[in-house]
């Protein structure tokens, strides 16, 4: 059966395709940029070299920043997942007054502009003498990450069939065993999602990190920011490319797994 193609539909598809290109293409310029031989931002780049990639892993400034970011992001993920998952359970299963208020409050770090959060945290952490320390970073980033964890894990907990917990109880499992063997495995996708959100929120965090940075603790985004403002260093392009490749792989993998998972049903 031939479907009549409406001209409106054609125009729509063209428009959307252009929008799609507009969404993705600009970011892609960093890739060829990372191979340039000259120390400029000129595009198209001249020459071809892996120099900037190796520089990323040999220049202290850069790889220190990378490991600092990784270290902080891992800690942030652990703390926010543990604390946030517990909160998700409490909010979904509990029946107590003020639950709505609590849920709204937990979301406020996402509503308040980051620059405001940065000012507030910088001022207070300075007084507490934790600004510029790993601890300060972990605390600040965790505050930003927790809402994501709570929201994603809550969704998983909400759709979990509690009759399975009943069955497990009937079969002889105590409360903790039930959580370990039945509940957690089934909400794990939500927890993993939340962990991913938390990790990326911390790893990519720029504004608050700019405020509370110190020579001892400099995260990768901060390093990238000062690289742009200070000198022309194509290592920035190499770092950007690696981030783009990594993020893209992660997204595509997640989407692929999701489609595979639902096909198997």
């Amino acid at each position, binding site marked *: 059966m031939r479907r009549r193609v409406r001209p409106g539909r054609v125009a729509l598809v063209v428009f959307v395709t252009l929008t799609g290109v507009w969404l993705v293409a600009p*970011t892609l310029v960093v890739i060829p940029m990372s191979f340039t031989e000259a120390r400029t931002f000129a595009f198209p780049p001249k020459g071809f070299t892996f120099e900037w990639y190796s520089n990323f892993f040999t220049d202290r400034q850069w790889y220190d920043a990378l490991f600092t970011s990784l270290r902080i992001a891992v800690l942030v993920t652990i703390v926010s997942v543990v*604390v946030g998952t517990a909160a998700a359970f409490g909010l979904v299963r509990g029946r107590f007054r003020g639950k709505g208020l609590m849920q709204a409050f937990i979301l*406020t*770090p996402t509503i308040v502009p980051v620059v405001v959060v940065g000012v507030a945290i910088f*001022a207070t952490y300075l007084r507490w003498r934790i600004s510029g320390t790993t601890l300060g970073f972990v605390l600040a980033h965790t505050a930003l990450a927790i809402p994501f964890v709570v929201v994603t894990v809550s969704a998983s907990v909400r759709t979990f069939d509690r009759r399975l917990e009943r069955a497990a109880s009937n079969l002889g499992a105590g409360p903790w065993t039930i959580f370990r063997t039945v509940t957690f495995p089934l909400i794990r996708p939500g927890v993993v999602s939340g962990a991913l959100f938390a990790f990326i929120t911390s790893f990519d965090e720029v504004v608050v990190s700019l405020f509370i940075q110190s020579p001892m603790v400099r995260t990768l985004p901060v390093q990238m920011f000062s690289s742009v403002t200070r000198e022309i260093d194509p290592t920035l392009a190499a770092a950007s490319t690696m981030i783009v490749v990594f993020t893209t792989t992660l997204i595509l993998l997640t989407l692929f797994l999701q489609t595979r998972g639902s096909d198997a049903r």
Partner: protein
Amino acid sequence: MPGWLRQAFGDRWLLLVVPTLAFLLIFFGYPVVQMLLRSVQEPTSGLGNYELFFQTEVYVKILRRTVTTAIIVTVVCLALAYPYAYLMSIVSRRWRIVLLAVVLLPFWTSLMVRTYAWIILLQDTGIVNDVLERAGIGRQSLIRNTLGVTIAMAQILLPFMVLPLYAVMQGIDRRLVQAAESLGANPAKAFLRIYVPLSMPGVIAGATLVFILSLGFYVTPALLGSPQNAMLSQLIVQQVSTLLNFGMGGTMAAILLAVILVILLGISRVVRPSAAYDAVGPR
């Protein structure tokens, strides 16, 4: 629920929430409150900082520029995102995933990377200017001014408009539009009269989100703009980071927050929160 269970867990669920609440109160809530307090305490008690802000012509200009830019960015994003989200909601599953991936990729890519990419593109010797020159329009100054900032922000914030729009659109029962057409309305009219109003909750959600994000945006205006055309966020950073003037910095942050709160309150008056559910037809 058995009594022993209820007794143990009735309040125990609350216990699980306490760590999160405590954490956020101490390490987030308290700092924000402190900042607001300092804005009316430093350097002197009272609303002196606020008065000073609104009396300083430069500051007011910056505030106006910030709001105007945010409006423009929101409108542009809406224009681009609406068709995109619409197509996403009507194509087959396979294509939907493709379109979703195209939106999620930039969404998850580091903000620094995306801003840096725009620097490369918009600079005077950049590719955009090369194209403009070839096209006969001539080189323009696209960087270190508001135009460049606006263009970059419109691209960077676009996913935040697409996703809420799509979320609402996928729940709209398109048979309603078909019904209108069967009753005699031409496709365009049916779309305008039926579909668009049903998509309003998504439009409002997306527009609010993008607008609020634009107001507080720092990285892109800071790197693509210049001190001559600064946004409010850059002003705040300058006050706090460079001048360590927490009083005025806090004041500006408070003003930014106030603008956002006003918008949110205005939205909640205009839109019934349940409106989003009215549009959702049977799946």
